[in-house]
């Protein structure tokens, strides 16, 4: 059973050849990590999966229905996207920001009800930002704003989470808290797809990985099969050393042998 499927998908990155079309099936309960070097299209892929960008070719299916056949509102009732960056043209409070996660569920003339307010407050509590509820988001730190953005997605009660660098700006404690939250959501049947630049977060928290290469190639599979130092070294163009800490793989950039590097004085 799949909840999110791509069929021969080619994301539209200007000036790049098509590469290999992506046919991927994401099932409920899976936690996918999308890895690749800067500019490879992790964000573009997530936006395409959310239907915010048209693909160059192929299509995306949500519950076996092509995205373009669904109303935006219907998509938003099933799928939430946590953006990597955010803009605030006008200041709003933290509680108001979490409440907009309820927007897809409300008819135009309806106001948020007690249940919506409860979901928003629970979401703020889950991200440990309840104490900021009446603050303007523009006055928060980067990490606090990131947690508010995740709380908005949580209030949206999605079956599919698309999270673009969900640990951006977060300190270690909150990184772990957010990853645990996403794992707990997956445990309750949500599908989670995260764009991550941190290989070790992916190794620690994802059960499936999709590796995107700059030439448009890709490979994917269960995490333990994908966490192969030579393949990852090719992905980032950076030799890696793998260690195990408490049984989990940890990757560190390999220190080139003295004298091996050209750029030393």
């Amino acid at each position: 059973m799949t909840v999110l499927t791509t069929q021969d998908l080619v994301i539209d990155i200007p000036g790049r050849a098509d590469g290999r079309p992506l046919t991927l099936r994401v099932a409920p309960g899976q936690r996918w990590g999308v890895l690749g070097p800067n500019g490879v299209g992790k964000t573009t892929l997530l936006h395409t999966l959310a239907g915010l960008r048209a693909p160059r070719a192929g299509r995306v299916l949500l519950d076996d229905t092509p995205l373009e056949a669904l109303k935006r509102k219907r998509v938003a009732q099933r799928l939430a996207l946590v953006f990597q960056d955010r803009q605030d043209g006008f200041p709003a409070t933290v509680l108001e920001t979490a409440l907009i996660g309820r927007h897809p569920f409300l008819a135009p003339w309806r106001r948020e009800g007690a249940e919506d307010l409860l979901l928003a407050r629970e979401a703020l509590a889950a991200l440990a930002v309840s104490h900021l509820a009446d603050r303007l988001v523009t006055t928060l730190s980067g990490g606090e704003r990131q947690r508010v953005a995740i709380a908005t997605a949580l209030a949206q009660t999605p079956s599919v989470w698309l999270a673009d660098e969900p640990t951006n700006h977060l300190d270690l404690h909150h990184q772990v808290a957010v990853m645990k939250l996403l794992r707990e959501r997956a445990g309750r049947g949500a599908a989670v797809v995260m764009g991550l630049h941190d290989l070790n977060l992916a190794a620690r928290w994802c059960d499936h990985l999709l590796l995107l290469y700059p030439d448009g190639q890709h490979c994917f599979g269960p995490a333990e099969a994908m966490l192969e130092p030579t393949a990852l070294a090719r992905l980032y163009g950076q030799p890696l050393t793998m260690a195990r800490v408490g049984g989990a793989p940890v990757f560190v950039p390999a220190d080139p042998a003295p004298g091996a590097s050209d750029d030393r004085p």
Partner: protein
Amino acid sequence: MPGVSPRPLALALLALAGALAVALSLAVGSVPIHGAELWAVFTGGGDPLHRELLLSLRLPRALAAFATGGLLGLAGALMQVLLRNPLADPYVLGLSGGAAVGALGAMLLGAAAVWVPGAAFVGALLSTVLVFGLAQGVGGWTPTRLLLTGVVVAAGWGAVVTFLLTLSPAERLPGMLYWLMGDLSYARSPWPAWLLLVPAALLVVPLGRGLNVLARGPLLAASLGVAVRPLEITVYVLASALTAMAVSTAGSVGFVGLVVPHMLRLALGNDQRLILPASVLAGGALLTLADTLARTLLAPQQLPVGVITALLGVPTFLLLLYRSR
């Protein structure tokens, strides 16, 4: 906010302020008419002279002022959300320039005064279509491109306005300058403005929550289920129609559309479901008061109301900017 809601209270206070502004504007003038006498006229009695003065002069003018202010307040609030720029106003996209060219052109050609509002309306709509078409560009419009296109088109209209003024015979110039500053003494009938204002004010209420989401950016809004482009086009067309109607009623009255939504945001927060109806009421109250001042300050000389709104609006706005963080 849900829970403790200051919303009905704020709207009730603004409605009361609007009613008081209208009452004041009925009472004040060359012949002051006080409370009991006002009441007598509206219950069908009173001095026939007072009756004539109120029902055929002061009341239409006060209603026209209120409706124009309401149209401008609402159009300004909508433009600010559409362009996601709190400094946008109803004229930022060149609407007043197009309307001015239409109105002054009609005046220059010696058209009867009844044609001037129509010519202004056509000019404003023409400018709307022009800016919208030009801002499409390659790959659809963005707020930035819309804004820049509007500013440049407005500059072009400004040149045409100056050209028309230089061509105009001296005896027509004062009327034209009054029109350019915004002046309600030309307001023939308040009813077209009210016929647009009331349905528009009702229509924006269900759009409010979507606009709240749109204010956070189009991508986030789309991810939350807002049909972004249809909503933006609706807002653009609506704000343009409101502005065109305001301009054809009273000329290009400045600052109401900029200052009113901005002040309300500082006082009431940024929920469009509150700000949009509040902008109608506050804009109407403000322009009614400003017009009363314009009529009475240097009586019997009448000032264009745009002078009053600018003299009130410029320092208020500068103060707000100075104090904002």
